[in-house]
Every structure is written in structure tokens, then in C-alpha cells.
């Protein structure tokens, strides 16, 4: 015996005829489709669908943890000192940093030569931002441009992460450079 549901449809003769109701349903669906298609062809937005990835949502919350941003110093160099705190704390181990040595910059002798994040494994937890002692890594509310054909394309490097420069951030005061020490030569 077929199971009886509480909202069992009560069908009259018209519904039991089957075909008229089917055609009515097709007319509703088709109407919506044609209307959206017409709007789309004339350059207007029909359905509420977001045309991802060409179009991204505008209503991300300000606190949304999206794509990483490497902040810059006033002179445009990355604020990162390649201390690897973010890479160490990262639960997905997606951050890889290769450090370089710049003896000419007294205050920041260590800098990142390579800074890469694998977005195919990133869990967007934000611990890297918490761990950073230099406020060098932040997360924008916009998500990264993820769709790709292979996992290697999901590695974003220093150039991609540095391109966004928050205008309000560079204004913060920097400590004065340490005094030059006269004795001793340098490598």
C-alpha cells in the first residue's frame, strides 16, 4: 500500500487530465526563461544568479576572510620580514616563504624572496593574520580568483598578493631607522 502523506494532493478532474497542468507549468518556466534571456540579451540583469567568476558578490561582510593581502611599507617594499610565523601556525601548511638577506637595509635585513599560498588547500581560518608580528599579512573581504584548470594555478605568489595596497594602512607611523654604527665593515 502506498504511504499516505499529510499533504497529499487532492486532484480533481482537471488535474487528473494531466496534460493541461503540464502545459501550464511549462508556460510558467518558459516565460521566466524568455524574460531573463531577453533581459540578458539587452544587457540587463535578469535572474538573481551571480555570473561567477566574471561577477563576484558585492555583499561580502567586512570581516569576511577572503584573499590574503601582503601589506607594503611606505616605500612599496613588502612589510613581511619572512619570519615564517604564518607558515608555522598555518593548520593547512599552505604558506611557503623563502627568505633573502639584504645587508643594505639596516632595519629589515630579512625579506621574502618568494611568498606563496596554495589556495587549493587554504582553509581561510585567518590564523596567519593573527600570528603575523609585523601586520604584513591581512585578508581582504573579497575571495581570491580561484577557478583554475589545475592545482598549480592555485598557487598565488608575492606579486599577486602585493598588488592590493590599502590606502589607509601605509599612513601608520614607522619607527625611526636605527643609527648607523661607524665601526666595522659590512659583507
Amino acid at each position, binding site marked *: 500500500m502506498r504511504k499516505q502523506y499529510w499533504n497529499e494532493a487532492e486532484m480533481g478532474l482537471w488535474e487528473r487530465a494531466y496534460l493541461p497542468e503540464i502545459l501550464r507549468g511549462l508556460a510558467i518556466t518558459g516565460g521566466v526563461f524568455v524574460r531573463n534571456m531577453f533581459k540578458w540579451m539587452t544587457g540587463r540583469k535578469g535572474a538573481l544568479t551571480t555570473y561567477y567568476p566574471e561577477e563576484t558578490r558585492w555583499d561580502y561582510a567586512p570581516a569576511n576572510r577572503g584573499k590574503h593581502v601582503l601589506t607594503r611599507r611606505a616605500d612599496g617594499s613588502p612589510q613581511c*620580514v*619572512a*619570519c*615564517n*610565523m604564518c607558515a*608555522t601556525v598555518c593548520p593547512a*601548511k599552505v604558506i*611557503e616563504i623563502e*627568505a*633573502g*638577506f639584504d*645587508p643594505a637595509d*639596516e632595519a629589515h*635585513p*630579512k625579506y621574502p624572496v*618568494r611568498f*606563496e599560498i*596554495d589556495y587549493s588547500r587554504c582553509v581561510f581560518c585567518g590564523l596567519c593574520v593573527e600570528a603575523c*608580528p*609585523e601586520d604584513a599579512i591581512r585578508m581582504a573581504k573579497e575571495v581570491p580568483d580561484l577557478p583554475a584548470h589545475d592545482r*598549480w594555478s592555485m*598557487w598565488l605568489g608575492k606579486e599577486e598578493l602585493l598588488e592590493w595596497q590599502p590606502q589607509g594602512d601605509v599612513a601608520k607611523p614607522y619607527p625611526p631607522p*636605527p*643609527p648607523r*654604527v661607524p*665601526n*666595522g*665593515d*659590512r*659583507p
Partner: protein
Amino acid sequence: MPRLTIDGREIEAAAGRTVMEAATDAGIFIPYFCWHPKLSVPGNCRICVVGVEDKGGEWVEIACNMPVTEGMVVYTNSEKVRARRKATMQFITLNHPVDCGICDKAGECTLQDYHYEYNGERSISVDAKAHATKHYSLSPRIVLDNERCIQCTRCVRFTREISKSNGLGMQNRADHSLVRAVEDGSFANDPYSDNVIDICPVGALLSRSFLHKARVWYLKPTASVCPGCSRGCTVNLWHRRPEWRLRAPGMRAQNETIDRVTPLENPAVNGPWICNKGRDIAKVLGRARAETAMLKGRPAELQGAIAQARSLIAAARKPVAVVSSWASNEELAAFKAALGARFSVLVKADHEPEPGEVVQDDILIRADKNPNTAGARALFGEAPLALPPDADLVLVWGEGLDFGLIPAGAKIVYLNAWLQPENGHADVFFPTSIQTERDGHYTNFAGVTSAFTQCFPRPAGVADAQALFAALAGQAGGGE
């Protein structure tokens, strides 16, 4: 022998021993910066203070320079001692830049550890920190950061007492004191100079080759034996931890390279030191590898090469083998068991001293630049390397043999790990594994046997010498 009590434990120590030595022997830990078991006692860091009970009261004194006396009662963790240690830590870190984030020593730094253990507070000083030279080039191998230096003078004493180069000294006094190299370049020419990097309790002395290469917690030490000379110093080979392996495109090879080499303390062989050549042994082990078997210079399948070598061995009337002094005892024993009866065996030196290298000294470095000559000679005798002119098959194992010495017309079976021009001149060539790809033992010139362990997987196509010899002798199992 005086009996004394340390933290309520009654211990016995030889007369003349210091409280530090007595405590260390009994397994009681007293913190120290400037003290080092192999160096003299300067008593300048004052962190090893202990309390000594006296007439119901307690006075504090440094443990490293205080001889044990009968009935002494010592406290290593009394309230007075803790307060004194904390004050000492505040003093030592007074001008320390606390740039642990960019310091290569962070993670294995004594100052960092002691700060958490004995101080744990911010600096109470209101004065600005004194600045000093950053990145001073102490020698072509070592960079000195004077701001991080705590003037313990361990490095200075090392060059005076251990390496005897007298290459380092202190300039000026107090806040202005600086470790500097002597101007005659004796520190740059000191073949043991890199040991000061290890004994530096802070990140002041840094290896230029390891500078900012990796944070130390990404690396893992694997116990090994330095193949640089017949001393066979035990070393730690530091390489990327498997859980921290690099995955970015193009970075995979980095996971299977040796990032640095440090001594592994071994009183029977090298104590806590190794020479600079041992530090650079990654250059020797990291050379381009041969990874395919070859027949007369043409790439071949390993099984096909084994079959060809077996027929050559079977057909030979006077086969001679020249075995490697870089082979492990296990491989040499496998060779002797499988092929020792068929071949007359000679031992060769794979490496000769290079121009400019310290050939031999009375500290560690030995003239024989091969790790297992003693092990090979113990199995195959002391016969000099002279190939009989009527030899018609020569099996050469390892690099370093001049192929011009092989009698013309003799077939050559060659086993080598490196990519070298001789490989193509052999009738049959087998690529073999290197030390970092297998476990084994070396016996040094004095007969002390030390073990090394595998760090990296064996590359595909490279034969394991032990299995290869069994296969060549016709026993079961291939070279893989």
C-alpha cells in the same frame, strides 16, 4: 672524595671538580651561557648562580667556578637563586635586540629558552638599547651580529683553546665590547671556525651558507657520519622535515637536500666539533647523480645490465675488483660474500686531498680523505693499488680511479653514484646509492665504527649495491 648535597640529593664528586661539573655528572641541570664542558671557565655570564647554605643563611655564587667542598649544601632553585637569575637575564638582555623573528638561532637559542624558563618578563629598563654593528663579516663563512652578542667569549676561547688559531678577540669594554677577528686573517683560515656558530648561545654568529635558509623547526637532524676524511666524525645532517616539505611548483628538489651539517657529539671520535669541510659536505653529496644503468655509454634497463655483467663475470679468466673506500661495511661484506671468491680485490682511495685543503692536523683532520678505508682494508687486505696487466675484467666500484690504469682490452664493470665522464667508458655501468640514501656503518682509522642513517629515498633507477652484488653473483633478487 668530598660529599655534597645538591637540591637535597647527596652526591660524591672528585676533589677539584666544580659544582657545575658535579651537578652535570649527577644529571642536575644548572643553566649556563659562557661555561662549556670543553672550554676554560671565564665565569662572566653569572647565570649559573647557585645558593650555598651557610650558618643557617644562604649565599649565592657561580657554580661553574666553585670547587666542591666536603659537606657543601647547594640549592639550584631557591628563591634567592631565582631572583638572582631573573636579574641576570634582565641584565644580559638589556641591549639584546629581541629580533627572534628574523634570527636563525630562534628555536634552538639558549637565550630564548632561558628567557622563558628564568625571566619571562619584558625588559624593565627605561633606557634606549645600545646599538652595535649588524651583519659584520667576521670571515667569508661567518656573519656576526654584535647587537645579539652577549659577550660570553665562548668563540674567543674556542679559537684559543681548541682550534689554536687565536683568530678572535674582544675589543673595547662593557656596552662597547665587540668580538672581532685578528687582522692577520687567521680566523678566516681556521679550518674549525664554524664550530663557533654552534657554541654561540645566541644568534650572534651565523653561518653565511645557512643564513635565512630555513627556520630550524622546519628541519630534522639525521645522525650520520662525515665522509670527508678517515676520522669519520659523527654529524647531524639537517634536512626538511617530511611534514614541512615544500610543495610549491619547482620546489620539490629542496626537500631532498642537506640544509646544514652540525656535529653530533661523540667522545670516542670527534667530541662536539667538526671541521669546515664537514660543514660543506652537502656540496660533495649534492653533486649531479647518475640515475640510469648503461651499456657502453647507452642507457639500458637495470636487469639487462645485470645480465650483461653476469655474462662478463662468467667469461672472465682473471677478474679484478677495485672496491670503494666510501662503501659501508655492510656493502663491503655483501661484496665479499657474493663476489669475493671470484675476484682478486684491491682497495682504492675514492678521494685525494684537494688543493688548498688542510691535509692533516693534530685535531681532527686526517690525510686519508675517505671514510671507510679501514673497513675495506680489514676485509680485503692492504695490497697496494696495482692492476695486474693480464686482468681481462675490472670491476670498479666508486669514483676516483684513473681509467688509464686499466689494462687495454680489459672489460670494465663500473659502479658509481655520480654523473661523471668515466661512466660512459665502462662496458657495463650501474648507478649506486649514496650515503644519505641508505643505512650503514663506517670504520674510521682508529677502528671505531659509527652508524649513518638514511635521510632521503633512493632515486628511481639507482641500484642498491648490496642487492646488486647478490644479483651479479646469481643469487635471487634484482638490483632494485
